[in-house]
């Protein structure tokens, strides 16, 4: 790819962005939207793009409606900046994706990739927290859907359609999100096991209890695993202690309840994107690793751990959601990724981070219902009429 030919545009307003898109559409120039650049690997290689649309010019927090627990944000707002503003009022956007803190992930990037972290256990994903959206389409129109209230069924839910659309349908200009109170105190119960089956059993047990945990994650690395349940609120420590008791009953080792738990969860979030941290070093010829997202079931945790281990990888799992992230270090990735997919099929296994060679070699998305794909292709045709948004990078070559 001739990356040198990519120009950068930085529209300063939705109107400017719409105008730019229209002219790109008329010229047939493909565009890629860039937020903080923390997930540039994701998706297929696709066709070469002529323009990178950088979102730094649309990075304002337009409204923080404290009493209503909502906020209206331009898509380019750094995620960490928005969270800091909400935290001043004791509130949060209940999303904690990896790299959402110190690094430069933007609100729009998190929404467009539907990225999530451990808080998803309690609050759902990006799709569950977005109540309104503003869009710029490739024909130059600005459109909106949803509203500014947390309950609303007027019109079609384009906010969900664009959440996770990977920048392939149109430009997300801004979003309205639902906020939640930020718990004053947190505490975490953590237990360990070297036995994947035992860990999985304990995870299934805790997932089925009415604990109201904020997060329930399992993690596995180098032959040993942990289960972590985090609580927030007035009685966080007592709740963590109660969960610890359940972990002991389930036979986990070294069970304890910790109040100083921030680092523990920061490490888990980082582990979800560990492959990215393993930056390639071209001088030494050492390649980059890969991260895979597995959409499975609660009871699939045991097989997911065994599969990760067989491939020489580590795993982080939202235990009650059946979602797992497997990290593979560098080396022989095509074969190892294929091995993971084979072992876990028919569960979807998406390649997120990974070197370009790997994404050229295999489809990062994997197969999906052909009838559903037809509808998705029609959506692409209708929304991105000039087919300029990351052509070829999404499922089925969309």
């Amino acid at each position, binding site marked *: 790819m001739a990356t040198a030919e990519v120009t950068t545009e930085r529209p300063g307003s939705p109107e400017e962005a719409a105008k730019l898109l229209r002219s790109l559409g008329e010229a047939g120039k493909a565009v890629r939207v860039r937020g903080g650049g923390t997930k540039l690997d994701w998706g297929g290689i696709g066709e070469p793009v002529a323009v990178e649309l950088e979102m730094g010019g649309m990075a304002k927090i337009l409204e923080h409606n404290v009493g209503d627990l909502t906020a209206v944000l331009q898509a380019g707002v750094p995620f960490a900046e928005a969270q800091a503003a909400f935290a001043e009022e004791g509130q949060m956007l209940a999303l904690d994706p990896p790299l959402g803190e110190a690094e430069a992930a933007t609100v729009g990037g998190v929404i467009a990739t539907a990225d999530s972290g451990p808080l998803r256990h309690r609050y759902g994903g990006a799709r569950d927290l977005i109540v309104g959206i503003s869009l710029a389409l490739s024909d130059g129109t600005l459109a*909106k859907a949803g509203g500014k*209230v947390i309950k609303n*069924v007027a019109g079609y839910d384009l906010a969900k359609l664009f959440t996770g659309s990977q920048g392939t349908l149109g430009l997300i200009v801004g979003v309205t999100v639902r906020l939640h109170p930020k718990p004053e105190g947190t505490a975490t119960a953590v237990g360990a096991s070297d036995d994947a089956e035992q860990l999985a059993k304990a995870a299934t047990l805790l997932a089925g209890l009415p604990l109201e945990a904020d997060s329930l994650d399992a993690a596995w690395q180098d032959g040993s695993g942990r289960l972590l349940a985090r609580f927030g609120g007035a009685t966080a420590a007592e709740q963590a202690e109660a969960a610890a008791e359940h972990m002991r009953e389930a036979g986990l080792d070294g069970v304890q309840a910790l109040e100083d738990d921030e680092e523990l969860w920061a490490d888990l979030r980082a582990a979800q994107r560990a492959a990215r941290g393993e930056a390639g070093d071209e001088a030494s010829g050492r390649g980059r690793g890969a991260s895979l997202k597995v959409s499975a079931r609660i009871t699939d945790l045991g097989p997911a751990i065994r599969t990760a281990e067989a491939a020489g990888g580590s795993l982080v799992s939202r235990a009650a959601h059946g979602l797992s992230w497997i990290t593979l270090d560098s080396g022989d990735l095509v074969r190892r990724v294929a091995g993971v997919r084979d072992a876990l099929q028919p569960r979807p296994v998406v390649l997120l981070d990974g070197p370009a060679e790997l994404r050229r070699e295999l489809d990062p998305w994997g197969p999906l219902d052909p009838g559903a794909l*037809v509808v998705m292709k029609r959506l692409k045709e209708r929304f991105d009429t000039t087919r300029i948004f990351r052509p070829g990078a999404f499922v089925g070559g969309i």
Partner: protein
Amino acid sequence: MSSAPEISHAGEPAPLAEAPPRDLAPLVAELRAAVGDDWVYTQEHQLRTYESDGLLQYHVIPGAAVLPGSAAEVQAVVRACAQADVPWVARGAGSGLSGGALPISDGILIVLSRLKRVLDVDLENQRVCVEPGVTNLAVTAAVAPQLFYPPDPSSQIVCSIGGNLAENSGGAHCFKYGFTTNYVCGIELVLPDGEMIQLGGKELDPLGYDLLGAFVGSEGTLGIATKAWLRVMPAPETTRTLVSFFDTTRQAGEVVSEIVQAGIVPGAIEMMDELAIQASEEMAHAGYPVGRGAALLIELDGAERECEARFDEVVAICEKCGSDDVRVAKDEAERQLFWKSRKAAFPAMGRLSPNYFVQDGVIPRTKLPEVLERLDELSEEYGMRVANVFHAGDGNLHPLVCYDGRVEGEAEKAEELSGLILDACLDAGGSITGEHGVGVDKKKHMPKMFDEPDLAAFQMLRCAFDPAGLANPGKVMPTPRLCGEVPGPYRIHPLEAAGLAERF
């Protein structure tokens, strides 16, 4: 739910183009072949049952009604309609409140009440798979007592999951738990061209665009779900409920704000004003003090320790904000009585007024005092009583506009007032519907909330699912629209389409 009589402008959606009435006979013969003679109705006395949904002021007799008995039969029916180019409307339990299931006079009504099997209960994975005719309450019944299905619309005894999907139903507990869309992880879907596809399943995050998110709440305009995989959750360890009375709705509103600002997320916060308290007491006899200005029903559920600690805080907030009458439910029986009183507020209004409209609007919760003031002004201006029942946590208002349908012009006046209430909600930054849907009833209000480019974007979505415009036409969008040709250079290759045709 509304006891409104017919009003004059009620009618069917305008046809897309002037055309002679369709001859449905050949299609009806095909439908009979597909589902059996017994399940196709064409006689007026059979069709009368289906002329309205829960919103009785709209009524249209469908050209024919068909009751398929399986997903395959639904597919055959939809395909036959597509081939005959005849529009159709899907209907679940018919309890909807926006005329979303209003039939088309020369179209087919597809009634899904025979598809009522619970297909799979997977407690360990917290999933239930049901057919669309299964009632909302039956989902929780299938997984109780360990698990429950959170969306709980007040019609949950009768309303069906298919209808819940179409309307993205909420309920009293959605402030904490969310809506139907947050609990659907998969569907089997018959598209308007008769193709059958699967979106998601037991697993979360299916590949590609979030078609599930687009489908739920689309009011029957994108296809018919023939199966739904639903997420169920561990039932809360404990539930604490109280009712608290105040002199003014403003005081009650302050309680709601204080609770939310304290970081407490109750399962439910329901508010009733003076007139609603009076109505509900006449029916439920819970010993509520008639004449008080406002009542709050507050329910906390969850982990026992947290719930107990927070509940004490809530009681303290109620007292601080001016309540001298806080009643904590001693047991499940008393809790049920509190809820009965709240739910009685709608039907009980019939005792205070010959007729009433139920409105459904949303406001940002902090705007409650000024919107209530506006409602009072409107009520005075029109000389009509307006009772208020709110899902206060999420700002969802259900004003009940009382009128006497026997008096010439009153129904029209009440409807006008009802519309102005929505304007007040929009002026406050809210929405024209929080849970009842747009259907046929509110499509005329859509342009107040959405501009032309927004509506055009909605139509793009609709056309991707239903290019021929056969699925529930005349609903949601303010004016009928055609899809037209796809612009741009990118097309699905004919071979691709041919390959798919073989697959199904």
